[in-house]
């Protein structure tokens, strides 16, 4: 394995981590707002707040980690993506900032502003939509380079079916991942009503997720045939991913073993995400940027990998402690003890 591959694998793993934890977060905000609108807030709010409060800051770090890491390992991405993404990334940043800080304001400060909860839920859907444009752009065809200055071709971007397919996928998978997780979490807490409601949402959002995922494959066959053919070469990975999807839906449908259902969902997304990423290689931005021509010097790469290993040695036990105390602690999940500052 070359240093380039190690680098991109590390980053891809963190992006996957962000995808899962942020989906839970964004989706939870949306379901909370939706339940407020339909008068079911009583059922969901407690469950959602109890999970989110101790971890919201950690979710944010996954994101920071990814974008700092990619500049570190692949400094040239700063030039291409930095220049072209000013507008979509700034919008995502502003939404993230409002969402994150107002979550804290509400939770620790004063509670119960309806309009705000609604905004919070909607913002959670716009952020994945804005961020997912990066995936679209990376497929090529949306960047013009004139006099060494790359710029984003908005007309091409907004008129492409690929863009919208990726946006829809990001939205429905956010809601699907979040619903499956919250079904499990609510079930652990022994809250029947919340479990049933979340289970219903999970089943509803499962299908748009899988249908758009297949739709994107079709889009790619004409938009970026090279990527498409690479994906066909590892069709079996997508096959396994699909089987895991069936497994999750089956368990949800049969109302049993929600923990297993969530792990299978994790496996489904993990395999599909890595298969998609692997097939995209060696390009970071088709056709301008590959992982080889944008890679940092060897000394820095080794330093970063050493720092990464040392960092993980610190993080994994800490994350484990966090999960033990709040996710897998029955007393806490059931709300028997509220020990916050």
């Amino acid at each position, binding site marked *: 394995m070359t240093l380039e591959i190690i680098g991109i694998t590390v980053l891809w793993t963190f992006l996957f981590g962000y995808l899962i934890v942020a989906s839970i977060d964004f989706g939870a905000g949306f379901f909370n707002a939706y339940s407020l609108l339909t008068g079911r807030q009583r059922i969901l709010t407690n469950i959602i707040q109890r999970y989110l409060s101790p971890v919201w*800051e950690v979710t*944010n770090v996954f994101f920071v980690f990814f*974008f700092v890491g990619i500049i570190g390992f692949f400094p040239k991405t700063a030039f291409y993506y930095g220049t072209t993404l000013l507008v979509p990334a700034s919008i995502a940043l502003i939404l993230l900032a409002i969402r*994150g*800080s107002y979550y804290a304001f509400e939770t620790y400060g004063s509670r119960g502003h309806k309009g705000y909860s609604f905004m919070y839920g909607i913002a959670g859907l716009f952020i994945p939509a804005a961020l997912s444009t990066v995936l679209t752009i990376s497929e090529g065809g949306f960047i013009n380079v004139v006099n060494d200055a790359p710029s984003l071709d908005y007309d091409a971007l907004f008129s492409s079916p690929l863009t919208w397919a990726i946006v829809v996928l990001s939205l429905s998978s956010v809601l699907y991942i979040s619903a499956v997780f919250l079904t499990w979490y609510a079930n652990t807490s022994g809250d029947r009503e919340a479990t049933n409601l979340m289970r219903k949402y999970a089943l509803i959002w499962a299908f748009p997720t899988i249908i758009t995922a297949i739709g994107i494959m079709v889009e790619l066959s004409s938009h970026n045939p090279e990527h498409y053919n690479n994906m066909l070469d590892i069709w079996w990975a997508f096959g396994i991913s699909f089987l895991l999807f069936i497994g999750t839906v089956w368990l949800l449908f049969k109302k049993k073993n929600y923990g297993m259902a969530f792990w299978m969902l994790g496996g489904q997304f993990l395999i599909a995400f890595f298969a998609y990423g692997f097939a995209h290689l060696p390009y970071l931005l088709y056709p301008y940027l590959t992982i080889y021509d944008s890679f940092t010097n060897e000394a820095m790469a080794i330093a970063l990998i050493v720092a990464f290993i040392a960092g993980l040695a610190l993080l994994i036990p800490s994350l484990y402690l966090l999960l033990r105390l709040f996710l897998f602690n029955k007393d806490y999940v059931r709300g028997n*003890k509220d020990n916050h500052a």
Partner: protein
Amino acid sequence: MGNEESVFFSRLLTEMTLSFHIIYATIGVGIPLMIMIAQWVGIKKNDEHYILLARRWARGFVITVAVGVVTGTAIGMQLSLLWPNFMELAGNIIALPLFMETFAFFFEAIFLGIYLYTWDRFENQKKHLLLLIPVAVGASFSAVFITIVNAFMNAPQGFDLVDGELVNISPLLAMFNPAMPTKVAHVVVTAYMTSAFVLASIAAFRLLKGSNHIYHKKALYLTMKVGLVFAIATAIIGDFSGKYLAEYQPEKLAAAEWHFETEGNAPLVLYGVLDDGEVKYAIKIPFALSILAHADPTAEVLGLEEFPEDEIPPLYIHYLFDLMVTIGMSMVTLSALYWLGKRLKWAFVDSKLFRWLIVLGGPASIIAIEAGWWFAEVGRQPWILRGLMRVEDAATTSGDVDIMLYLFAGLYIVLGIGSIVVLTRMFKKNPVEQELKDRHAEKGGDIL
């Protein structure tokens, strides 16, 4: 929009984001240490007031951390969005501390979540105190690593530039550059100092506005004492910073001091205005600049005449430098008087006027932080990487920076007002007298 405008708006947006961020970031670095000290004192003295102090600080801290985190995310990404050419070059050399900063931040985030949600969960309060150590360490280390990045921009090293190609890169050498020790020490210590004085000004304010509770008096004494220690440390490190500048960035020192001609026995210029190249109404302290620069009253200090005109920073940084130093020195005096006054039982330190001065001390310290950063950053103009890359070559070519500037300005206004409203409401609704009463009712008076 031409490139010149992109550069202008990129600078403005970066300055605005950082100026807003550092208020919350400074508090974010210093407060965990203060919480730790209060909780430790509380456990040691078996005094519920200090424990409650820690708890109430922690509650307010969450709000400031939230704004610090989201604005920190913004500046982290803006570095690549607004300065893509700079990041492309510098990323090769300085990515390591940037990467390590996210680890420190990660570490802090995990334990802050645990700390906030485990009050009363442990039988032994010492265990809970242990959770604060990684929070404080993580907070301080993110400041250390990110300041290393900034130090590198002031004193780039750890690579060779051969025909426009970077060779012989050494990430560690780049991190341990000459600017690093003084910068890091100054940033961390002033963050502690500012946090202590901000908390002191809250306690003094409560004492002025009705409450005469012993809780606020304990808070005031503790924070002023800690503030004094760090204010003295700041002054000492400030002196080292002067010596660093004289040796490595003489043009910054000369511009800050309006020192035009190279000469020995150089006086330190305090205040004054610049009129057509003439310094007027200034106080000159003989030999002081030579002492500040070289620890020798007769030493020669380089003047601005030695530098090409297009490499001289704007001369208004003199005012920023003065403001920072004046506030710093006033805070040393104020806290020293308070501490002495308390020991020697001078009545005036409990007077209304003196308490109002302490109330002013918190905001003044934050202004000093801002002035210090503006001085440090504007003082290395026109460079983004001193001696290597000029600011205008680093900025984005995108034409939409102005719109982003307005959007982010709106965001910071919302966040600024929001955080102030939430914080005031949080503590007004639940004054310390009420909380003490509630806790006694709950536990029958036995808290520890």
